[in-house]
C-alpha cells in the first residue's frame, strides 16, 4: 500500500509500517487487533433483515469487512445502505440476523454497545451538538462515569491527536462556527479518540468540494493502511472504484454482488445498482452535449443582494446574477455558503437586507412570497416535506397549494371541489405519480413520487423562472431521470432556471452556465460546457482570484 501524504489527511508516520502503528500515542486509541494468523473479518453480518412498516430495508443481507481494507457499499437511494450500517452502529436492531465483530458474536443493542466494540460511524448528517465545543462533543461520547467533565485533559489529548493526524481542528471551537469539511473532521477526530477500529462513513463526500473529497478518500486509504477497517457508503461510482478494496452492491435491501475494482467498471456497477441499463449514470454527464436553446432577455436580475442567515449573520454578501429565458444557471458550492438563502430570497421567503431583485424587469425586492409566485416564479425547495408539501394532508390538498386562491380552483371564498379533483387527477396522470388516489395522504408516497407531484404542481402554471434546489436529492434513479427531463423541457420551452445543487455532475449536465458561491459571494462563473470540475472545486473551497470577479456581472 502506498504511502500517502496530503494536507488534511492522516499524516502517516513511520508507525504505519508497524502492525500497531499508534500504540505509542498517549491517546486511548486501541490498536486494531489484526492477527495475520487468524484473519477473522472485522465485521461479519449474517442474514440481516430489517423492516420499517411495510418497507423492507434489508432482506437477509450478508456483509463482511476485513481489517485493513476499504469496503465500499454502493446502491441507489433507499437501497438499504444506511439502514445496514445503522444496524452495525447499534442504532437500529435488526429483525433477524447476527453480527460478529473480530470473530466474536456481538450484541449491538445500542450505539453504546457499538462504541464499546470499536465501531464508529460518521453519519451523513453529522451527529454533533451545534452549540457545544468540539471537546464537549467528544466528552459526550466517552463511556466514562464520573462527575467532572475533564475538559482540560480531553482538550489536550484532542489537540495532540489533531496535530498528529493533521486534522487542523481547534478543540475549543464551537461546532456551528466550523465549515462542513471541518465538522466532518471533528467526527473523525472523535472516533479516533473514542478508540474506534471499524469506521463507517455514510456518503462522506456528498458535502465536500472535489479537492476535499479527494483528501478525505486519501485519509480513508491511510486508515486502512494502518489496519483499521473502513466501510464507505457512496453512490458515486468513480470514487468507489478509486478508493475501495472491495465493493458490495445493495439493491432493494439485498446484496446483489460483492466484487473488486479490478474486476468491474462503472457500467457494470450501475447496472447492478439499478437492475437495468441506464445511460445517464454511466456516461460522463459533462461530456454530454447540451443542446442550445435561443436565450432571450433576463428573467431574473439580482443586484448586490445581501441577506442574513438563520443565526442572524450575513449569509449573502452582494450577489449579482442574471438568468435569461431558455437558460439554466447552475449554482455550485459547499453546503452552507449561501445557496439556501439565495433560493429563499429570490422566492420571497427571506427578506433582503440590501440590493435588489427583479423579475421580468419588475422590481420585487422584499415583496411577499405570494406576489413573487404570481410573477411566475416556481420553487422546488430544498427539503420537500418541510417546505413544499404537507405530509399530513391528501394529494389534492397538496396539489392546490399554489393555485388555491385563484379560479378555477376556487370561486369566491369557497374552494371549487370539482376543479380541485380534476386538477389533481391531471397532475397525477401527467407526471406519473404512483398513488392509490388523490385522497391518499401525501406522507404515504415515496420520495420520488412526492417530488414528481411537487414538480408537476410547480410547473403547472408555465412559470417564467424556476428555482430548483437539490431537485433530485433522495429520489431514485427513475424519478431522477424524469425530473431532469422535466427541467430540460422547461428550458426548451423558454423558462429561466436557477438550479442549486451540490451534485456537480447534475449541475454540469443541466446548466448552461455555472456560478460558484463561497461565503455568500460569487467566487466565479463559467460556461458549463467545458467547465473544469477541478477549477470549480477550488472556487468552492474559496480558492481563486476573487478580486478579478468583483464587479464582474455574471
Amino acid at each position, binding site marked *: 500500500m502506498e504511502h500517502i501524504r496530503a494536507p488534511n489527511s492522516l499524516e502517516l508516520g513511520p508507525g504505519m509500517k508497524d502492525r500497531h502503528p499508534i500504540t505509542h500515542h498517549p491517546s486511548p486509541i486501541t490498536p486494531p487487533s489484526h492477527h495475520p494468523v487468524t484473519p477473522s473479518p472485522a465485521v461479519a453480518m449474517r442474514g440481516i433483515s430489517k423492516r*420499517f412498516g411495510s418497507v423492507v430495508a434489508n432482506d437477509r443481507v450478508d456483509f463482511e469487512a476485513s481489517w485493513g481494507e476499504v469496503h465500499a457499499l454502493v446502491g441507489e437511494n433507499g437501497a438499504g445502505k444506511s439502514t445496514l450500517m445503522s444496524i452495525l452502529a447499534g442504532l437500529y436492531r435488526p429483525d433477524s440476523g447476527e453480527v460478529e465483530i473480530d470473530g466474536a458474536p456481538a450484541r449491538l443493542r445500542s450505539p453504546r454497545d457499538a462504541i464499546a466494540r470499536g465501531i464508529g460511524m460518521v453519519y451523513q448528517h453529522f451527529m454533533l451538538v*451545534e452549540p457545544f465545543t468540539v471537546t464537549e462533543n467528544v466528552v459526550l461520547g466517552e463511556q466514562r462515569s464520573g462527575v*467532572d467533565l475533564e475538559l482540560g485533559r480531553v482538550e489536550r489529548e484532542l489537540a495532540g491527536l489533531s496535530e498528529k493526524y493533521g486534522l487542523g481542528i481547534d478543540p475549543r471551537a464551537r461546532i456551528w462556527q466550523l465549515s462542513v469539511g471541518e465538522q466532518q473532521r471533528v467526527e473523525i477526530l472523535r472516533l479516533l479518540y473514542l478508540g474506534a477500529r471499524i469506521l463507517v462513513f455514510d456518503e462522506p463526500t456528498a458535502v465536500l468540494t472535489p479537492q476535499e473529497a479527494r483528501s478525505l478518500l486519501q485519509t480513508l486509504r491511510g486508515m486502512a493502511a494502518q489496519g483499521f477497517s473502513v466501510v464507505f457508503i457512496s453512490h458515486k461510482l468513480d470514487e468507489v472504484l478509486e478508493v475501495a478494496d472491495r465493493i458490495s452492491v445493495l439493491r432493494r435491501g439485498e446484496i446483489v454482488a460483492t466484487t473488486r475494482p479490478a474486476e468491474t467498471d462503472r457500467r457494470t456497477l450501475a447496472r447492478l445498482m439499478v437492475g437495468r441499463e441506464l445511460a445517464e449514470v454511466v456516461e460522463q454527464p459533462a461530456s454530454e452535449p447540451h443542446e442550445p436553446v435561443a436565450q432571450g432577455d433576463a428573467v431574473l436580475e439580482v443586484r448586490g443582494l445581501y441577506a442574513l442567515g438563520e443565526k442572524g449573520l450575513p449569509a449573502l454578501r452582494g450577489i449579482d446574477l442574471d438568468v435569461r429565458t431558455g437558460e439554466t444557471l447552475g449554482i455550485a458550492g459547499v453546503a452552507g455558503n449561501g445557496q439556501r438563502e439565495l433560493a429563499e430570497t429570490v422566492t420571497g421567503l427571506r427578506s433582503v437586507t440590501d440590493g435588489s431583485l427583479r423579475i421580468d424587469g419588475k422590481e420585487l425586492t422584499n415583496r411577499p412570497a405570494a406576489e413573487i409566485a404570481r410573477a411566475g416564479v416556481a420553487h422546488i425547495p430544498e427539503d420537500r416535506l418541510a417546505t413544499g408539501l404537507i405530509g399530513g394532508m391528501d394529494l389534492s390538498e397538496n396539489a392546490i397549494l399554489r393555485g388555491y386562491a385563484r379560479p378555477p380552483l376556487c370561486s369566491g371564498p369557497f374552494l371549487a371541489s370539482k376543479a380541485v379533483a380534476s386538477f389533481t387527477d391531471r397532475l397525477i396522470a401527467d407526471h406519473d405519480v404512483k398513488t392509490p388516489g388523490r385522497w391518499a395522504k401525501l406522507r404515504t408516497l415515496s420520495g420520488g413520487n412526492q417530488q414528481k407531484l411537487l414538480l408537476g404542481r410547480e410547473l403547472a402554471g408555465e412559470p417564467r423562472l424556476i428555482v430548483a434546489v437539490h431537485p433530485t436529492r433522495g429520489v431514485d434513479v427513475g424519478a431522477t431521470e424524469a425530473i431532469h427531463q422535466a427541467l430540460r423541457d422547461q428550458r426548451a420551452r423558454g423558462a429561466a432556471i436557477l438550479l442549486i445543487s451540490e451534485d456537480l455532475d447534475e449541475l454540469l449536465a443541466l446548466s448552461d452556465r455555472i456560478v460558484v458561491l463561497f461565503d455568500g459571494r460569487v467566487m466565479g462563473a463559467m460556461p458549463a460546457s467545458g467547465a473544469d470540475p477541478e477549477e470549480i472545486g477550488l472556487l468552492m473551497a474559496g480558492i481563486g482570484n476573487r478580486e478579478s470577479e468583483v464587479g464582474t456581472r455574471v
Partner: protein
Amino acid sequence: MLCIAGLKNWSGASANRATEASPLRSDKQASRSAHDSRLTTHDSPCRLSVLPSRRLDMTDILTPAFLISVLAAAVAAGTAILFACLGELITERAGVLNLGIEGIMLVGALSGAGACIWSGSAWVGAVVALAAGASMAAVHALLCVGLRANQVVSGLALTIFGAGLSAFLGRDIVGVPPPSAFRRIDIPVLAEIPVLGRILFQQSALVYISIALVVFLWWYIYRTRAGLRLRAIGERPEAADAMGIDVARLRALYVIAGGALAGLGGAAISLGTNPGWTEGMTAGRGWIAVALVIFAAWNPARAAVGAYLFGGVEAGQFRLQTAGVDISPFFLNMLPYLFTILVLVLSTREATRRLLGAPAALGRAYVREDRG
C-alpha cells in the same frame, strides 16, 4: 362548583372568603380584611413587623427598613415559584415541555399539607410532596416520552387533572392549619450581615434549600458529565443517541425529577407562605414558573432572579394595599399576571430568543426510527 386550574385569584381563597363574609364593606375595607385574614394564616418569616396599624403614606413606604422587608418577603414568596421554575427548567433542558406544572403544584401543595397534618412533620410533608409531584410527572413522561403524545395537550390534561384531583381529595382538610410548617431559621453569623442577612439568611429551611438547589443545578448543568448529556438530549437528541446515550430514559428521568421539584414548590406554599390547603391555592404560580423559564434563558441563576422578581411583585402588592394606595385590590391582584405577559413578550422576541439559546429540540418527540 367545579374549580379548575386555579380560578382563584392571586391572593388566594382567603381574600374571597373575607369579601363574602362582609359584603357591605367598601373595596378598601375588603382589601384590608383580605390582608388581615392573610395575617392570621401567613407564616412567612419576613412578616409585617414594619407595618404599623395606621395607614401608611409614601414616606413610610420608602424607608430602608420597609424596602428590606419587601425584599425579604420577595425571597420568601418567590421560593415556591423558584422550585417550580427549576423543575420546568430541567424538564425543558431535556427537550420536553411540561405545561402541567400548575396541576403538579396543586397536588404537591395538597399532599404536602395533608402529609404534614397526618404526620405532624413539615419535613414529611415536603418529602410526600416531592413524591406526589414525581408521580404526576411520570404520567406526562409516559405519555410524551414513551408514547410520543402531544406535549402541549398532555400538560394541559395534567393541569386539569391535578386541579380536580386536589380539590376532590383535599375536601376534608380545607382550612385545617397544619401542625407544623417551615418557619424562619436565622443562620448564625450570616443573619447578622446588614441588609443581606435580613433578606437571605432569616428565612425558612425551604428557602435555603432552594438557594442551594440553584447553585447545585447551575453546577450540574454546566460543569458535569450528566449535565452535558442533559443539554445534549434537549439540543440534539439524534447526536446524543448516536453517542450511546439513552435519550428516552434520560428524558423521562428529568421530566419526573422536574415534577418532583414542582411538587415541592406546591408544598412551599401550603407549608410555607400560606400554611394549610385551599382549593386552587397556587393561583397560577405554576404557569408563571413556565413563563419564567423563558425569561431565565434556561439558566438556574437567572431563574432565581425571575422568581424573586415575582415574589417582589406579590409582596409589594400586599404592602401597597395595606399602605392604602388608592387602587382597587382587584387591579393590584392583576399585576403578577400582566407582569408575566410583559416579561414573556420582552424575553421571547425572536432575536433575543436565538441569543438566549432555547433547547433546539424542545417540544419535539425523539423517534429514532423515524429518522431513517
